[in-house]
């Protein structure tokens, strides 16, 4: 831009701006918020934040990888950041500048933009990590405390954004600094929001922020103790909303239940998977075939992502022939890619590749109204953007070699291309951007918009799972079990999986299996070129 945004102020020219949303808050308690030394006109920071948001929106016809790669991969590679981000970064390099950037995010990110929370996380990913002093100064500057959360009508956008920001900070600073920044006031602020008397989108993000603070074990204990101190644990009230007809409250219910099962476990409360009725459910989302951060409900039919990666899952049932149909009710209006995938489709969640981003999968994203295959989008015309409660129908007719998506019964044109390379081995599958949620019906309930032009089968009629397979065990319990498993010692030294049957020639190093040696270019031990691989009996 070439302009200098440094605004040199005369020393006596005081800045009269107040912290975001503070004008509506009674300053009844505590000291005044700390003074910020503003080197830069905050309007310019606001403008940079908005430029940043429109930059993200300009990625809408790209794969999520374009978006997510920017924040995740760049951290480890040498790619450069887009210009508005670099500028924000420079401003945020100073403590007060960082607070200014965060205030702008809180002030200007609109509530209704489905990419808003993601924009906040991207800016955070790129900015230097704040010191704990800077974060504490920020929380004082924003006057985060019980009173702020108890105040009558609040600016929902500002409070929502503050909660998103706190979640980001918690995630970035995981460890001792995350403990230091979760002050009593900040904790009070978040916990006070956990009530049905508040706007559900603020409750939701306050809950998610607590969940992210709880990634640090000491915080988890603190939050658990704090929740116990409440007359009734607010999560026990909120989890009852998991089936609520209001889609925002339903999300709150989902997250509260998940938190109670995974993080803020209460003695005497059965984990949801131990008490849920699974009779009549014969196909689930596969808890062994899912990327790391996706949350799956205890009945295995509803999924949600609160991480910043692009999380994916397949179902437990494979179809190879015939005509099949399932439905998926979206709970959130944002980016999800829902459809079909074979086992050859990889979930590269951190790189942002999901269902529809390779040869072996096909999906529809009703937020951007795009059908995805081979990472290439096809725009669907005459279809409104999906809204919470809309039902996506997914039909696959392997004999006729076509897959047809529909929204609330309104069909799109058939997709045929995927059958050029793939004729069998399909699973229902979906990818989720941050803060998205949907619910699957594989036929255990009546379909809302069943196809009428051809006979079809449902997964649930044909699926068959043992009681053990139907258990949606919390991930931490599953990983604990895995880590305790004893592994054989006489295996390949690279994968610890296969017999070590190969010798590399000419260096003669051994101890590797045929799968691993097939992937090697040089000897892993001495870097000698591999001219021949000799098998030996093991």
């Amino acid at each position, binding site marked *: 831009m070439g302009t200098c945004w440094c605004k040199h102020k005369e020393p006596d020219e005081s800045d009269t701006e107040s912290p975001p949303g503070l004008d509506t808050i009674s300053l009844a308690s505590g000291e005044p918020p700390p003074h910020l030394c503003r080197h830069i006109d905050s309007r310019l920071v606001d403008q940079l934040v908005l430029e940043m948001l429109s930059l993200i929106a300009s990625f809408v016809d790209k794969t999520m990888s374009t978006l997510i790669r920017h924040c995740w991969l*760049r*951290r*480890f*590679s*040498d790619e450069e950041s887009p210009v508005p981000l670099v500028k924000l970064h420079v401003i945020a390099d100073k403590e007060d500048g960082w607070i200014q950037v965060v205030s702008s995010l809180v002030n200007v990110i609109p509530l209704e933009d489905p990419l808003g929370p993601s924009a906040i996380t991207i800016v955070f990913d*790129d900015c*230097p*990590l704040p*010191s704990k002093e800077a974060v504490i100064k920020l929380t004082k500057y924003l006057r985060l405390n019980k009173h702020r959360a108890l105040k009558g009508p609040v600016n929902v956008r500002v409070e929502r954004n503050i909660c998103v920001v706190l979640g980001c900070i918690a995630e*970035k600073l*995981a*460890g*001792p600094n995350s403990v230091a920044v979760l002050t009593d006031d900040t904790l009070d602020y978040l916990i006070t929001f956990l009530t049905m008397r508040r706007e559900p989108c603020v409750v939701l993000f306050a809950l998610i922020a607590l969940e992210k603070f709880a*990634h640090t074990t000491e915080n988890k204990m603190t939050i658990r103790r704090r929740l116990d101190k409440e007359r009734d644990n607010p999560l026990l009230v909120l989890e009852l909303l998991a089936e609520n007809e209001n889609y925002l409250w339903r999300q709150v219910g989902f997250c509260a239940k998940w938190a109670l099962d*995974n993080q803020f476990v209460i003695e005497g409360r059965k984990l949801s998977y131990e008490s849920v009725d699974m009779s009549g459910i014969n196909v689930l989302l596969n808890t*062994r*075939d*899912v*990327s*790391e*951060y996706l949350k799956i409900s205890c009945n295995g039919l509803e999924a949600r992502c609160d991480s910043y990666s692009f999380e994916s899952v397949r179902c437990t049932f494979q179809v190879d022939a015939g005509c099949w149909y399932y439905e998926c009710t979206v709970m959130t209006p944002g980016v999800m890619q829902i459809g079909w995938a074979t*086992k050859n489709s*990889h*979930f*590269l*969640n*951190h790189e942002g590749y999901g269902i529809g981003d390779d040869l072996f999968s096909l999906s529809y994203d009703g937020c951007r109204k795009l059908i995805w295959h081979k990472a290439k989008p096809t725009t669907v015309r005459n279809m409104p953007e999906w809204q919470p409660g809309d039902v996506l129908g997914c039909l696959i007719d392997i004999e006729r070699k076509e897959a047809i998506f529909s929204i609330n019964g309104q069909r799109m044109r058939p997709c045929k291309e995927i059958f050029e390379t793939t004729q069998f081995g399909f699973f229902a599958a979906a990818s989720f951007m941050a803060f998205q949620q949907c619910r699957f019906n594989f036929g255990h309930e009546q379909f809302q918009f069943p196809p009428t032009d051809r006979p079809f089968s449902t997964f649930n009629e044909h699926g068959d799972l043992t009681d053990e397979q139907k258990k949606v065990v919390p*991930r*931490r319990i599953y*990983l604990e079990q*895995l*880590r305790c*498993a004893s*592994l054989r010692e006489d*295996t390949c*030294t*690279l*994968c*610890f*999986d296969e017999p070590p049957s190969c010798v590399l020639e000419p260096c003669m190093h051994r101890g590797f299996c045929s799968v*691993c040696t097939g*992937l*090697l270019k*040089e000897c*892993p*031990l001495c*870097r000698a070129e591999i001219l021949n691989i000799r098998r030996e009996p093991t």
Partner: protein
Amino acid sequence: MAALPRRIIKETQRLMQEPVPGISAVPSETNARYFHVIVTGPEDSPFEGGLFKLELFLPEDYPMSAPKVRFITKIYHPNIDRLGRICLDILKDKWSPALQIRTVLLSIQALLSAPNPDDPLANDVAELWKVNESEAIRNAKEWTRRYAMDN
């Protein structure tokens, strides 16, 4: 991502059973491929007394490709840039699947003991390190005190 590869389970078990002195690497409770790492600044280096937080992530094709590692704590070092990215050959073209999380973290700790300004990533830091080493070391100590020490 299907089931967790045995290689990762095995390495995790070993890291827990025989931890590396001066280094802690703890897998995330919910993501077995993501490790929270803390490296203590080596003695007789400008980073002595500091606790440096890093993140380590094992990509889909690990161990055929290197772990992704970066510093989260700010550090003044010629081979580590402002985003915490590390210039270390074994994380790039000199990776070998016989290397492990353990060896990678030891190499990073060694890099703290022996900065290499001739192979820089953070250019201004490397420049100062070359022309005025004592000032650079003063800066490194100051950053260590400011960002890597808990009071």
